[in-house]
């Protein structure tokens, strides 16, 4: 694999000829491509389609929550007569929508599409490599992701409905078709889809790690890597450590469901009979699930942090503040993320002493998170901020990350968790801190690297409209949600008005749904901008944002091997913006140090 890359580097001339002689066919160029730039576009477009489905589902169930059991033609049209007779959403499909919305957004959009797109695009380009360590595995990884997406979508069409035990699929609910309709073939497809997804994720992550370690260009030491690469690298490491645990949980659950084992089940009486299961524990499943599930939220947020760090520095025309502190905090977050999973389980019935330990580790994570937030704020201090849409989304990211992160102090404290556990307070918290924030990171990345991906610019005015409406609506949906959570409203309730206790929360629910519908509708602006600009956008210049990193030294036209001629060598760190002693306000990494020029950062 590495020898291949080596060859690329050496026999560039031959390589070039080679391309001219053997034109890529449509299939090898657009479908089974092994070029990381094409694979990244494939990830992005698949992810956007999954995102449309996931966000669309949330709009449907938000309507049900605001106007419970009212009839909407759209429900009947989309869900059919069985799940929305006369346009009234049934409780089965409500739970299914919630479950699949969570699954799609967490795994298929924010894990695969975010990390898959930008790791693939940026790792080779920013470290100065011709391609990933293994282009073939990279291709396999994408196609496994595509397969798992198809399986997940197909589960929407099985007779008893898709998985509906919540995205955390806690057994016994997820294991017993008698307990809920969605735990039949819908859940089987969910588990198969996730198993394939995990395989895809692992192949991708291994590739990223190997590439970052082995294929950096000359002069690109680890402490000269852009923070994007650090974030992708550590994300991949966490993924490799934690995803296999989910795979084993899924396999054991499949065993329990199909082969009568009792890993997670015990003493169950359902539908008038005692089942044979004996000795298993649902709490074991919770441990296994959250051993991935918690690192997963950092798998989602770290790449967004990396993208935002890079975009903020570029658009502030200032070095990122505290480069080494940023790396240290990424490492600290990565380490701590693997030992805090129990804070999802304070109320699970595990020994309260464990709860104490997990409270301690969980609140520790606030420290590196705070360091990062302060560093971003200091980065824009005394900058010369270029308010491109990507920069707006980066600022929005820091804002929602702080707002959402602060309530984590409540949820991470086992004592306070007693009364807000599994209420809408949790929903508000994690949507702001990892959902909205990671989406902002993804949007920032798309606006920023679109010229690199498609050779054209996105329309900035549409970008501004998209940002402002999205950001107002995001706060509009999730800020009031804290209040109804603190009022004790449990999540995953099909209606909140079945008994009078929560009647006074209904107006708030209507308001949130309004914001959600408007915010969701305005994503059409983004979609229009994205797809029309592929064909009609303004052609870009090579380095539109006047950025220092290596990807902007590569030609606009995508070629195999990224650079014509030799790969640029690196002579400085990636954040020499507005460095005193230079005429331009940025000095790209491949420019050698001037005579007598000093390194001004530590």
């Amino acid at each position: 694999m590495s020898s291949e890359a080596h060859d690329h580097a050496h026999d560039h001339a031959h390589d070039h000829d080679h391309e001219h002689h053997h034109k890529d066919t449509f299939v090898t160029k657009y479908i089974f491509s092994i070029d990381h730039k094409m694979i990244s576009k494939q990830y992005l477009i698949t992810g956007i389609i999954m995102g449309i489905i996931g966000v669309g589902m949330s709009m449907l169930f938000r309507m049900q929550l605001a106007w419970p059991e009212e009839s909407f033609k759209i429900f009947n049209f989309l869900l059919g007569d069985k799940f929305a007779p006369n346009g009234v959403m049934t409780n089965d499909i409500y739970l299914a929508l919630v479950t699949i919305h969570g699954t799609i957004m967490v795994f298929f959009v924010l894990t695969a599409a975010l990390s898959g797109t930008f790791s693939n695009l940026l790792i080779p380009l920013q470290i100065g490599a011709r391609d990933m360590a293994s282009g073939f595995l990279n291709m396999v990884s994408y196609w496994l992701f595509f397969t798992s997406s198809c399986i997940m979508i197909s589960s929407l069409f099985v007779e008893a409905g898709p998985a509906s035990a919540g995205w955390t699929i806690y057994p016994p609910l997820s294991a017993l078709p008698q307990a809920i309709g969605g735990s039949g073939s819908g859940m089987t497809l969910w588990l198969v889809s996730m198993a394939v997804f995990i395989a895809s994720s692992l192949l991708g992550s291994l590739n990223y790690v190997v590439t970052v370690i082995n294929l950096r260009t000359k002069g690109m030491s680890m402490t000269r890597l852009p923070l994007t690469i650090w974030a992708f690298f550590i994300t991949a490491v966490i993924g490799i450590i934690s995803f296999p645990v989910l795979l084993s949980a899924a396999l054991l659950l499949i065993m329990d469901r199909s082969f009568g084992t009792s890993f997670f089940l015990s003493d169950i009486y359902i539908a008038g009979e005692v089942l044979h299961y004996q000795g298993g524990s649902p709490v074991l499943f919770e441990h296994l699930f959250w051993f991935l599930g918690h690192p997963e939220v950092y798998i989602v947020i770290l790449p967004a942090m990396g993208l935002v760090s890079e975009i903020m520095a570029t658009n502030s025309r200032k070095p990122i503040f505290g480069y080494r502190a940023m790396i240290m905090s990424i490492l600290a977050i990565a380490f701590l993320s693997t030992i805090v999973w129990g804070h999802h389980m304070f109320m699970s019935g595990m020994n309260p002493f464990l709860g104490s330990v997990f409270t301690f580790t969980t609140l520790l994570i606030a420290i590196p998170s705070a360091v990062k937030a302060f560093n971003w704020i200091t980065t824009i201090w005394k900058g010369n901020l270029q308010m491109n849409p990507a920069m707006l989304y980066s600022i929005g990211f820091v804002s929602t990350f702080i707002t959402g992160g602060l309530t984590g102090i409540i949820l991470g404290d086992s004592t306070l968790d007693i009364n807000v556990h599994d209420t809408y307070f949790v929903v508000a918290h994690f949507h702001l801190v990892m959902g909205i924030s990671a989406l902002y990171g993804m949007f920032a990345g798309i606006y920023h690297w679109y010229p690199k991906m498609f050779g054209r610019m996105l329309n900035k005015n549409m970008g501004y409209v998209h940002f402002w409406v999205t950001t107002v609506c995001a706060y509009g949906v999730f800020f009031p949600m804290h209040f109804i959570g603190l009022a004790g409203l449990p999540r995953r309730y099909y209606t909140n008005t079945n008994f009078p206790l929560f009647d006074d929360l209904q107006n708030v629910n209507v308001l949130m749904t309004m914001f959600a519908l408007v915010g969701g509708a305005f994503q059409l602006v983004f979609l229009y901008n994205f797809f029309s600009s592929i064909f009609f956008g303004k052609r870009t210049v090579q380095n539109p944002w006047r950025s220092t990193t290596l990807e902007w030294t590569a030609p606009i036209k995508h070629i195999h091997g990224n650079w014509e001629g030799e790969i640029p060598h690196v002579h400085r760190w990636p954040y020499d913006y507005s460095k005193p002693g230079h005429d331009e306000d940025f000095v790209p990494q491949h420019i050698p140090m001037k005579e007598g020029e000093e390194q001004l950062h530590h």
Partner: protein
Amino acid sequence: MTSLLVIIVLVLLAIALWQLTKIFDLTQVGSNASNSQIADDNDNNVQGYLMFGFLAFIYIFTIYGLIKWGGLVLHTPSSAHGGQLDNLMNITWVLIFFVQTITQALLYYFAFKYRGKKDQKALYFADNNKLEFVWSVIPAIVLAGLILYGLYAWTNIMFIDDDEDTIVVELYAQQFKWSARYSGEDNVLGKANVRYIEGVNSLGVDMGDKYAQDDKVVTELHLPKGKKIHFLMRSQDVLHSAYMPHFRAQMNCVPGMVTEFAFEPIHTTQEMREMAFMQEKVANINALRTKKSAELVAKGESALDPYAFDFLLLCNKICGTSHYNMQMKIVVDSPEDYKKWLAEKPTIADEVKTAAASAAPADTSGKPADSAKADSKAVAVK
């Protein structure tokens, strides 16, 4: 009608969008129309001001929310430990609002203040160890305080002393219904397992256990004020969670194991209903319900009942399609009323005997004996 409304909303949205794009286009007038799609000084200026405006939006929205929705939040706790929990919660909230106000202000103010201008040069400021040290250590110290307080409270709440004088009550969860079992005179619950479930013995109590004889099963939970209740929780099918928000109490019910939680109720239902905040809340809910009832009656449906406050035990772990409708009324009585209420309830032993007596004359073919045999086999397997 609804579809018309939806169409109108969509059309209006489209118009709004079109107009917004035009406004942003208009902001371009006067700047040299390079159309590079890269932010120019004009964009920086407009977006910088919008950033400042957004800071105002966050603050106003927060204040509006606190005034308008602050009253919805759970008020006076009705358990002895609730005060300590709420106290920690309030301390944490003060801290959160403090940090939130300052950091958001800095973020958006800087975004406004340092918006790009042609001749502005950014400061090359790459790192400062002192600053990093300060903002690592301050959160560390503050969090250490919160952790210590939190752990102290957690230990107080969760670790139940066996010597303590408590009333032992079992909460029993099944799709989609709660039951409670009182341990009776001996204050010890009889053994139970789903394999003993039969007829009226729907909780699977082992009738051979001497401690089980005086157990009482009810579907409405009554608790005496001023006495610590030790809840033991079981589930017969899937995960459930016993959530009693007014008591700041929650614990999952897990099939195959017994979980526990304990608290002491400090207000009776009646006292709670008489509190000023509660009367206000109930009046508000009833006003909403009256309005809704009027609509329902106009449509020819029956009106809603007026609401009177009651404590509720809610299911708070997704447990199936009717998860949203799984709750049990909790009544906190004075100790005397509680004793009177409990004394009237039959023991499970009596219930089983009565059921057997009424079944026996009708069916003498010995079927009960058969099923009893099958049952003991199941137990033997276990």
